[in-house]
């Protein structure tokens, strides 16, 4: 049995590594990924371990790298993926080089950033000043406006102006403030200065860059006029409080103009310097971006190695490290090789020693996977990880999971789309993998690409069985049904039936899957499909569960739990067989022994008229009663002795429950007692022999679990199994329910979306050709075609199928519409018109 069947065999190994070689060896083992180390000093704090300094250095390096990465991202420089192979963990001495490189880069970058920030601050100040000069110009212009002066004169009167003339010498400050602070600023000014200041403000339209955070912020220019020094200090304090920057602003227009000129030239100079700084920064970052991913991998590998080394024990002589690890028994050779490589690389002369150890501890479960099985294994892990050496359900999931999906998704067309998508992902696997797409949804799909592919393929298969392609049917082999109604019946009847007993049915089934004629049966298509799909779901479900229970037999046999076979496996499988498998058998009996009633009605008992409902039969079986609604002219059983057999089955199945419940605890109790008396005897014996010191092997102590715990565990297990098998059987009906939902939704999508869209296109396109075609074929006007035509565009009916051949009422009402047979097989798609 290969590793696919059950989890890998593991052994505990002790590893003696020479101190110098330990790093290289662990690095090699890390690349293999086959070893699980055990923590040998669990009581030691994280910061008291041996290699904590190295881990800390790695942390520091990571911090520097993160800083670099952040800066690179901020500039939007693409980071190069690692070309080809992932780098190996560097030698410990390389760590110093790396540290130096990062240190240098970080310092350089910080310096550049500092310079840039200073320059930017300078630049910001100058731009703000520029804006102030520009905006305040307007304010001053308004002041100087002669019309205003007149206003003042009229308002204050000659005297007032004269009186105020001396005092009119107003002081002012100008500055820039964040726009959102303006309202509070204004209110505060008014309150603190008691309304004695005059504030004008104008918005700066372009956002300015904040040098420390490099965010874009909106600001406003303001100018405050006031009178007197006291107010001035107060205003300045408030400005400071609101983080407004104040700038000197000359009063005379000429000075202002001169200043503006100066500012403009300085801004231009600064721009060139800033450009150069940015260029320098860009160069540094581009150089770093080339290697940063590589560095990240390297540093993380070093860190991981030292974390692993921290798990090791130090030998008394300090010369070697002792590790304990779980390894798969099959890979011991590979691990030995890796260790040897590691020793060679480190140049150490003493080879590492790998000892297998005997242990009573439970080994970890390890399932070897490849890229195909790993997705399925992950599905299993989502439910739980099997105990060590238990049967691994993953290989069966490879078939059952896509198949059960396909039962629900059965549609050839949709399945094909899915399969193509899955195939594309598998085919383009390598390039897609290299792209490292971060989207979570994509990764779910890509991780399960083989599942998607298989689900698609299986869906195509079940789609063929259901004869469903985009909610239409394929008529490959020719339907087995013919209609024998005459034309007048066809035109007038609301719904017509085809009788399987008559000439309507060719008496041999459609060779593969569902007969396409059912696609046209509007009245009872769903009823027919439901009966079929429900039964199929239950049959699949019961077999699935039986298979699962059988797998437990393998576990019991492998772990030599003979008691479990007798008191767990056998009652379990009996319970399932006697109740649910019997129900499956009833389905088959119903399928085979009941047919359509023959024309002469000689045996009504085997006709569909008498066919019992399986569900009712099963419920009655559990309740020990017969069907009170059974028709009088039918048998109340499906076969002779059914009632007796059913009673026996139910009683036998119920008998299994107490066996499951009490069997195992009983045997365990018995065993413990036996062992206890045995131990007693051996102690007595040893006492008699005078070797009282000889300790009886306390292996039993390990097994002596609390008996109540066993009882509780077994009770839970039994309840879960019994209820589970009932509820799971019902749950498998979900296969039918979802399949029904899918089919119906596909039909709605076809009718409401696709057909409407396609038909309007086609009508315009083929109206003329259709007209010609109909004229020539008036006699054989196939109604499948007309049906489409009449529905989609009633107006065109008259021109296409003139006369009574296909009235819309008749076409719509036909239930099992096979009346196109004269014109040939009913076409699944009307588009040939």
């Amino acid at each position, binding site marked *: 049995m290969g590793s696919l069947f059950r989890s890998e065999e593991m052994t505990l190994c002790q590893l003696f590594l020479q101190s110098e070689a330990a790093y290289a060896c662990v690095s090699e083992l890390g690349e293999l990924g086959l070893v699980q180390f055990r923590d040998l000093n669990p009581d030691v*704090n*994280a*910061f*008291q371990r041996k290699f*904590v300094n190295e*881990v*800390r250095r790695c*942390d*520091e390096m*990571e*911090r520097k790298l*993160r*800083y670099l990465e952040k800066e690179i991202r901020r500039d939007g420089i693409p980071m190069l993926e690692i070309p080809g192979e992932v780098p190996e963990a560097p030698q410990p001495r390389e760590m110093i080089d790396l540290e130096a490189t990062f240190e240098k880069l970080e310092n350089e970058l910080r310096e550049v950033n500092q310079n840039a920030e200073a320059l930017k601050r300078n630049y910001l100040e100058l731009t703000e000043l520029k804006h102030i000069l520009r905006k305040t110009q307007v304010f001053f212009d308004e002041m100087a406006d002669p019309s205003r002066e007149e206003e003042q004169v009229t308002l204050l009167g000659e005297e007032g102006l004269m009186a105020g003339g001396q005092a009119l010498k107003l002081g002012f400050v100008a500055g820039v403030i964040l726009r959102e*602070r303006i309202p*509070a600023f204004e*209110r*505060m000014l008014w*309150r*603190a200065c008691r309304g004695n200041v005059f504030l004008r403000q104008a918005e700066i339209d372009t956002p300015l860059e904040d040098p420390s955070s490099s965010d874009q912020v909106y600001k406003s220019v303001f100018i405050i006029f006031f009178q007197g020094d006291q107010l001035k200090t*107060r205003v300045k*304090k*408030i400005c*400071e*409080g*609101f*983080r407004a920057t104040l700038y000197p602003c000359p009063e005379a227009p000429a000075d202002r103009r001169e200043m503006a000129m100066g500012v403009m030239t300085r801004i231009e100079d600064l721009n060139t310097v800033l450009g150069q700084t940015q260029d320098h920064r860009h160069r540094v970052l581009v150089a770093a971006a080339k290697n940063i991913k590589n560095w990240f991998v390297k540093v993380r590998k070093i860190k991981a190695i030292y974390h692993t080394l921290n798990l090791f024990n130090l030998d008394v002589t300090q010369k070697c490290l002792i590790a304990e690890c779980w390894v798969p028994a099959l890979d011991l050779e590979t691990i030995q090789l890796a260790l040897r490589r590691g020793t060679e690389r480190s140049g150490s002369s003493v080879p590492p020693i790998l000892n297998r150890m005997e242990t009573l501890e439970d080994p970890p479960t390890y399932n070897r996977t490849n890229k195909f099985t790993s997705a399925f294994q992950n599905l299993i892990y989502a439910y739980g990880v099997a105990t060590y050496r238990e049967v691994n359900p993953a290989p069966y999931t490879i078939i059952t999971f896509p198949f059960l999906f396909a039962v629900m998704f059965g549609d050839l067309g949709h399945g094909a789309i899915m399969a193509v998508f899955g195939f594309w992902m598998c085919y383009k696997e390598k390039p897609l993998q290299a792209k490292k797409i971060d989207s979570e949804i994509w990764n779910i799909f890509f991780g399960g690409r083989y599942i998607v592919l298989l689900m698609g393929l299986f869906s195509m298969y079940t789609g063929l069985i259901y004869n469903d392609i985009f909610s239409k049917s394929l008529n490959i082999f020719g339907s087995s049904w013919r209609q024998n109604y005459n034309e007048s019946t066809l035109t007038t009847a609301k719904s017509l039936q085809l009788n399987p007993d008559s000439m309507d049915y060719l008496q041999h089934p459609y060779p593969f899957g569902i007969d396409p004629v059912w696609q046209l049966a509007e009245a009872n298509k769903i009823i027919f499909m439901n009966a079929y799909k429900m039964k199929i779901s239950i049959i699949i479900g019961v077999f699935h569960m039986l298979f699962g229970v059988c797998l437990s037999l393998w576990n019991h046999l492998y772990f030599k739990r003979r008691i479990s076979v007798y008191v767990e496996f056998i009652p379990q499988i009996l319970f399932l067989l006697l109740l649910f498998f019997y129900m499956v058998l009833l389905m088959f009996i119903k399928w085979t022994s009941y047919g359509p009633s023959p024309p002469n009605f000689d045996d009504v008992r085997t006709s569909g008229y008498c066919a019992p409902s399986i569900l009712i039969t099963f419920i009655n079986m559990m309740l020990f009663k017969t069907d009170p609604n059974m028709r009088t002219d039918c048998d109340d059983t499906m076969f002779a002795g059914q009632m007796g057999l059913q009673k026996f089955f139910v009683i036998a199945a119920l008998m299994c429950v107490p066996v499951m419940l009490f069997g195992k605890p009983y045997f365990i109790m018995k065993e413990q007692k036996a062992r206890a008396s045995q131990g007693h005897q051996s102690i007595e014996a040893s006492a008699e022999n005078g070797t009282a010191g000889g300790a009886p092997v306390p292996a039993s102590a390990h097994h002596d679990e609390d008996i109540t715990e066993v009882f509780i565990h077994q009770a839970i297990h039994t309840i879960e199994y019994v209820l589970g098998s009932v509820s799971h059987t019902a749950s498998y009906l979900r296969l039918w329910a979802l399949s029904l939902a899918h089919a119906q939704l596909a039909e709605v999508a076809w009718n409401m979306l696709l057909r409407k869209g396609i038909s309007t296109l086609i009508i315009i396109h083929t109206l003329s050709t259709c007209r010609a075609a109909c004229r020539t074929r008036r006699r054989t006007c196939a109604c499948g075609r007309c049906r489409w035509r009449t529905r989609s565009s009633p107006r065109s009916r008259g021109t296409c199928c003139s006369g009574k051949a296909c009235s819309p009422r008749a076409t719509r009402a036909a239930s099992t519409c096979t009346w196109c047979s004269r014109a040939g097989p009913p076409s699944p798609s009307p588009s040939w018109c």
Partner: protein
Amino acid sequence: MKGCIFNIDAGYLEGLCRGFKCGILKQSDYLNLVQCETLEDLKLHLQGTDYGTFLANEPSPLSVSTIDDKLREKLVIEFQHLRNHSVEPMSTFLDFITYSYMIDNIILLITGTLHQRPISELIPKCHPLGSFEQMEAIHVAATPAELYNAVLVDTPLAPFFVDCISEQDLDEMNIEIIRNTLYKAYLEAFYEFCKLIGGTTADVMCEILAFEADRRAIIITINSFGTELSKDDRAKLYPRCGKLNPDGLAALARADDYEQVKAVAEYYAEYAALFEGAGNNVGDKTLEDKFFEHEVTLNVNAFLQQFHFGVFYSYLKLKEQECRNIVWISECVAQKHRAKIDNYIPIF
């Protein structure tokens, strides 16, 4: 009935808060922390807790103040998240919590300006939860009236400040009086608000706030001995929403020394117990620590009830205590002063 509809508005946030609460350091974490040799060790250990990588981006020589800042920053981010997702009446409740920080900030700024410190130096010392827009312009004011008219009138603290306007000028004594009057008004308002919310919130919060009020009253009394604060003035500063009100407060107002305060506390079982174990000798816990411990118990108890806002208050207070603990331990580690390292107050 309130419990039924509580989750519509605050269920998510309560869940979030309880989740945050689970990240509060346990006794075992503290036992590990006190073993640290350097701040780097401390950082390494905190990485293994809920704090995660909060110090990962700090360059290597760590200082206690960086740790303090980062601890506070994390707490503030969490609290702001809760605040931003809350609706009435919870948002008002959370706002009420921040008012106490605003009071502290105002007092800090006024005291700073009184000592001629530049405002830019003081701002970083303010608690970010209590910052408000007009805060930085506070040094405009020279008298309490101005402070009220120019700065505080727009803030939510305005109604609390009305009682202080009468004070003449801002000196050290008056600032202290302002602080305590503000606090008294704040506590009483908060207490009323919690009562208004009613239900479990009122049960839990009134208990905590009553203790807070009594603690202030006792501390004010003890600290006032030997200062120029008159007994009448002192009585005015007592918050009147605690269990000491009214008899205990009246007795406190008459107290002249520590023993008399202790005698007053004797009448109240829980406070008597606190005074019992407190002392100033080496090895004894101070009264203040005792109060802190009691506060922690009250706050931990708040988590025993469901469907109330008290958990948010308690979480903030517990987390603050934790920050104080960590800072205390890091100070001890940094100064190699290990004798008192165990004087932190364990939470769980």
